[in-house]
């Protein structure tokens, strides 16, 4: 990994078309300005990780696994009801 020290107002180039400028340096985060060709997709890494995890999470589960998990988690349901405010309950289906 290439490591580089930069101050606010300074920038760096990736190739000839991508420029990343350090706009602001705060105590816990930095603000970046990115100039790049419009067709280049730019996303926070967390969004891509979330996307991949969502795709995995959407896969169908065996009803037996769901029944098993419900049994394992059942002792926690009382805790859940107590800690959720009334308006927090999603609509019950009848």
């Amino acid at each position: 990994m290439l490591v580089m020290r930069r101050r606010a107002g300074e920038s760096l180039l990736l190739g000839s078309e991508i420029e990343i400028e350090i706009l602001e340096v705060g105590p816990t985060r930095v603000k970046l300005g990115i100039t790049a060709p419009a067709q280049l997709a730019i996303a926070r890494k967390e969004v891509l990780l979330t996307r991949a995890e969502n795709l995995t999470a959407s896969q169908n589960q065996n009803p037996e696994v769901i029944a098993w998990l419900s049994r394992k988690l059942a002792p926690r349901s009382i805790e859940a009801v107590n800690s959720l405010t009334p308006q927090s309950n999603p609509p019950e289906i009848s």
Partner: protein
Amino acid sequence: MPTLTTRYFDQLEYSDNATFQFAAGIPGFEEHTNFLFIQQPHTNPLVFMQSLHDPAICFIGLPAKVVDPNYHLELSPEESNALGLPFVDGPQTQSKLLSLVLLTFAENTEPVANLMSPIVLNPQTRRGIQAIQLGSSYSLRHPLALESQAVACS
């Protein structure tokens, strides 16, 4: 009342005001803008997040507090706005919201919960978002800490 074909509960009747709108969908499912959240006594505390656009798409989640009683949610002004909240970063605002964490089932391991990207619902405005916790140390794959014998059953 409209009827919905669901992934895990066959046909369910629901009222239109029971659904939640996700204006931007969620990452990977941007076209799924309406979800129904299903709780059933025999599967408590699981919450099923059923897409209204595709019966095959149903996420399985848990209230975040079930996984972590001290779970703390942070919302950006944009996220608060998407939920129809005034941006007030206080416990009063948060108490009106429900955070769910989605479960992922990997083979031969216990299910894990995505604490980093909770589904946040505002029951008053019927709006929802997936609020990625950028500044937190919450894990994308948090173990549910079921008993160790559980692994053998799966």
